[in-house]
Structure formats: C-alpha cells, structure tokens
C-alpha cells in the first residue's frame, strides 16, 4: 500500500512538473508565439530523384556495371582528384573494376605517393605500388574538401545524392530571391540539391569535359552517373558479393525454417485437443 501510494504521489508530481512548467508554456508558445525562423535558403532546396532508370546496382539483384565504374574512376582521376582524397581505397582494389594486375601496376605507378624517408626523416615522393592507398590531397583553398571513399554511405540515399549534387548548379530564381532577401554568399555557389543550397565547390562537371577511354557519351549527366556509381563502389566494394551471399543464406534459412515448422507441427500433433 505504501509503495502504491508513493507511486501515485510521485507519478502525479512528475506529471504536474512536466505539464505546468514544460508542456503548457511550450504549447502556448507553439500556438501563439512567433513562428520559428527558417533560413531563406531553405525555400530554394529541391529534393533530387537520382538518374533516370536508376543505377545498375540498384535493387536486390543489382550488379556492378564494370565499364561504368571504370569511366567513373576516370572522372575521379581527371576531375575530383584535384581536391578530394580517396584514402580508404588502395590501388590493388582497382582489380575489382576489371583491370588486370599489370594494368593496376601501371596505374599505381602513374601516381606519386608522398612518404617520409626513414633514414633522413625528409619527405620524399615515389611512384605508387598496388599496395599503396590513394594519396592525400593538399587543398590550397579554404575549408576541407571531404574524403570521397565513404561519401555515398555518409549521406542519405548517397548514390542519388552525389548524382543530383553534380547537376544541381544554377542560379536561384531571381524573383523568389528578391522576395525573401536571399543572396549567394561570396565564395559559395548555388546548388539546389545541397542541403543549405550554398556549396563551396564550384560546378565540377561540364559537357564533354572528360573524354572516356571507351568512347562512351560524356554529357554532364553521364559523367555524374558514372562518378556516383564509382563512389558507390569505393564506399561499399562488397555490395554485390554481400547480396549474393544473402540470397544463399536466405535460401538456406527458408529451407531450414520450413523443416523446423514441420517438426514443430509433428511434435505437437499429439497434444491438439481431440474432437469428440
């Protein structure tokens, strides 16, 4: 009885504190107070929808389009690399994109990798080996361009986010901008698919910028899709292997669970109420 009485008193007390000091002032403010201020930039944000037709790796049966990954790597190498590193990917990993061992060796050797000479302590540079990771990037401008290895997992709906971001550049609608008093700050660029629409990165891609080794079409959209696919691979190189393993595991589990269900029914059969 004491515990129940104490409980009732404690319960009423905590509810009273919550309702009188938090809920009522908050609800009053919500109903009659000033509306919370929203940054004018939010009026310009548009949610993107990714490439038409989606990616080759979309869906539970999706597979890598190896030629596309190679093109995406070329876009990274010729465009993104100047500001963005790829530090969790090693050159040896490129063999998964369909390059031969010799090609990977040649590719790695075309990069220079900084290292500290163990005998002198001086910083030196050497041609890359397949075991090396992609080198760090020293960016001269303001801010830190993010490493791209995991970018498609570090954003909601990452592959589509990267694709949309490449294509979201432009100018804000002047009438709308004048109305809410919105201006793109100095040194930033307008991108309607970037969460606060002011992005430090200038539009990286333009039609025909990269001439693909395989001669594939190279509009901005094509390159955006290719590089988004490549960055999906860098973030989750085991994506396709994972799903294939998953189908095998699910098949086994379905079979095993059916057997478990049948033995459950069999064992319990004798206990069911008998009809009289």
């Amino acid at each position, binding site marked *: 009885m004491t515990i129940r009485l104490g409980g*009732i008193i404690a319960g009423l007390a905590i509810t009273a504190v*919550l309702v009188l000091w938090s809920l009522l002032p908050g609800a009053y403010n919500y109903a009659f107070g000033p509306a919370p201020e929203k940054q004018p930039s939010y009026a310009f944000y548009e949610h993107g929808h990714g490439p038409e037709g989606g990616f080759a790796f979309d869906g539970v049966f999706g597979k890598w389009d190896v030629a596309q990954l190679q093109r995406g790597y070329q876009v990274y190498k010729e465009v993104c690399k100047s500001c963005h590193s790829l530090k969790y990917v090693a050159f040896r990993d490129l063999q998964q994109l369909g390059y031969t061992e010799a090609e990977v060796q040649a590719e790695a050797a075309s990069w220079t990798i900084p290292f500290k000479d163990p005998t002198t302590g001086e910083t030196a540079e050497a041609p890359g080996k397949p075991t090396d990771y992609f080198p760090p990037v020293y960016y001269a401008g303001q801010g830190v361009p993010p490493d791209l290895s995991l970018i498609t997992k570090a954003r909601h709906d990452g592959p589509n986010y990267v694709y949309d971001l490449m294509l979201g550049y432009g100018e804000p609608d002047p009438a709308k901008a004048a109305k809410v008093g919105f201006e793109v700050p100095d040194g930033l660029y307008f991108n309607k698919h970037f969460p606060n629409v002011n992005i430090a990165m200038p539009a990286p891609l333009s039609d025909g910028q990269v001439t693909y080794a395989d001669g594939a079409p190279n509009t901005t959209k094509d390159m955006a899709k290719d590089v988004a696919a490549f960055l999906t691979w860098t973030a989750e190189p085991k994506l396709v292997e994972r799903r294939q393993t998953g189908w095998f595991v699910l098949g086994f589990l379905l079979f095993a*669970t059916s057997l478990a269900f049948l033995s459950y029914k069999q064992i*319990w059969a004798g206990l069911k109420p008998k009809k009289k």
Partner: protein
Amino acid sequence: MSFAWAKQYEPQSAFTKWIDEKLPLPRLVYNAVGAGYPVPRNLNYMWNFGVLAGFFLVVQIVTGVVLAMHYAANGLVAFATVEHIMRDVNYGWMLRYAHANGASFFFIVIYMHIFRGFFYSSYKAPREMIWLLGVVIFLLMMATAFMGYVLPWGQMSFWGAQVITGLFGAIPLVGEPIQVWILGGYAPDNAALNRFFSLHFLLPFVIAGVVILHIWALHIPGSSNPTGVEVKQESDTVPFHPYYTAKDGFGLGVVLILFAAMVFFLPNALGHPDNYIEANPLSTPAHIVPEWYFWPFYAILRAFTGDLTIPFTGIVLVPAKLLGVIAMFGSILLWFILPWLDKSPVRSGHYRPLFRKFFWFGLIPTMAVLFYCGGAPAEEPYVVLSQVATAYYFLHFLVVLPIISQIEVPKPLPFSITEAVLGKDKTAEAPRAGSVDGGDTGTAPEGSLQPAE
C-alpha cells in the same frame, strides 16, 4: 527445482554415468532446457523471445570477439580499422553488419520480451526476482550498446558520447567532475574510447552472468503462461524438450530470416549516415540522435524543456536538464517497483478488461509516439507530442496501474491450463478424485501442485 512429475535425467552409457558422477553438467542442461523442465502447454509465440534474446546475446559475443581481433581502440586509427574490417578482413563486412544489426535485433526481441511481461504481468509474485534481474539485464544492455556505438569513432559516436556523458553533468555540484571522470577528459578522446572498448568487451559477460541468474530464478516457480493460472497438475505441462525446443527452433528460423534480410540487403537502414564521417570535435552534426532503440527514452529526456522555477520570482529549483535526466532514468528504474504497483491478483491481461484497454489504447500508442518523437528533431510539434506521451507514460505505471488493480472486476479464470486448452478438465469436476487428464499420474500427491523446491 521443478515439479514432482518432471522427468529425471538417466545417464545411459558408462561415459555419461561417469560424467554424471564427477560433474553433472548434462543433468543441469537436461533440467534447465531439456526434457527435465516441465513448461505450461499453452504458451503462445510471445514466449519465444526469451530464447531469442539469449541467441542474440551469443551472436553479439561471437561476432564481437572476432571484430575485436581486427579493431584498434585509438582515436587516430579506430575509424580506419573499421574500414579495414569492411574491406580487407575476410567476411569482415558480414561480421560487422551482423554485429551492428544484431544489436538492433537484440533490442527488438528484448522489447517484445518486456512488453510480453507487461501484458501478462509476468512480474507478479512468485516471479518478482526474474523481473528484477531482467530490468538489470536491460540496463546493462543499454550501457553496452551505448559504448559499442562509440567504438567506430564516427560523428554520431563522438557526439553521442558527448551528449550521453553530458547527462551526468546535470547532477548538481558533482556533475562536471563526474563527467570528466567518466570521459577521462573534457571531451571524448582516446581515454574515453579506450575505456569504452574495455567496458564494451566486459559487460556482455556480466550480462551473460545475470542471464544465468535470470534463468535460475525462472526455474524456481517455472514459466508463466497466457492464462496466468499457475500449473496445477501434470496435464498442464509438457517437457521443454522436445515441445518448446521445436517451437523455439521455428521461431528462431523466422527471426533469422528477418535478420539475414537486414544484414545482407539493408545493413545500414537502422544506422545513421553521419557515422560514416570520422569523428570531428570541431564540427557538430545538424541533429544528434542516438540509435533507434534509445529513441523513446531520448524523447522523455528532451520532454522537459522548462526549468522548475518558483513562479514570478525566477528562482530555479531544478534545471530542465536535470529534470529530463531524472525522468529518463526514472522511466526505467520504476520498472523495479512494478511488481508492487500492480496488485491485481489476476496476471493475464486477457482476463483484465480495464487493464487491457489502458494497455492497448494507452501504453502502446504512447510508446509509439515517444519512439517517433525521439528520432525526430527537437522542434514542434514533436516536443509537445513527446511531452503528452511522457506524462501518460508516468501516469500509466505510477497512477493508472495501482488504481485499476484496485477497482477492476476481472473476468472468470479457467480452473486450470488444461481446461483453457482442452475446454474441459476432469480434476475440476471432481477435485482431488485421484485422476487427472492423461490418466497415468493420478497418484501425484497434493504437495506436487507446487514446485518441489
């Protein structure tokens, strides 16, 4: 510790006889989860979740121990070693995704297990100790899960650690020294990461120890059942093996299918993208949210937005943050006195019309609202919603339960589990006539209606 009609372990071969003499471990297993443990015959699928929780504890320990072989708890390399596991360790991606989603599934089955306990009043006498140990396990799980989430050293790891240890900073006078002591510094860093790793490795084994006590305490009165009527006779029970090993096997299969679907096809669906960004003390994420299984309690924490003041004087008695911390911990700690708050002699919610209404139309929607608001940003209308839900949460356990257990008129209970299952129980018509359904145990002495030990 079992009913008088429980089957006895009889070693067959010379070897098992020898083992049974020296160390009767097979006998212990036989009596704990084998044919020697009589269990009510009417358990529904809600009684599967205890075994499933034990299974996921083992999954977490096995995957976790292997992950620990490839992980380094150092702020400089922790994030990179996780990527090393994902990319270079054989099936490392599977281990890590199984461990991350295994934590989620552990919480899913535990929440089902706890809410089974709420609905069927599994916490009532004679099972209070099982319930109390269960709450201890849940608290240990929360601590373990929180520290595990810090280890990948992503943005949410870092800022989650900052926010959660900051809760201790709300304690008056000694709060800040305690927070600094817990973290080993003024902000999460190597010291915090290392001790969290150490404790994250230790606590699962503590949990395993309390689980053993939990099961031990369970075997004193035996399992509860959906009617809430205690076991009276042999026809009320079936041996755990093969009846419930078979049923649990099927339940395990179903849950493993869901688990595999998450691990192999949606491994990051329950995580936060920000945790794939390395921890950066100089950049605060837009919304700091804990893992989904903490959302209801996070909503209770954030529901207290106003300081407790003396009106019109501006004197602050209790700051809002401390109120929130008290309420959040209180919301779980009050489960410790639940067996003494709900005094209704009827256990099962099926026979408690009033209780059932408050359970389905009060507690369950409240938990859903708290869950949703805990994951939402701290803005209206989520704040007001979580305040209403928090108020009901406390009223439900502390006010509604004690009062309805006093005024409620329960529905008539079946005479026995046998009657509930078969619609008929011969012992009920001729009590103690020396014959029970099933026939061959008519000589069971009266004392056998209670557990033998």
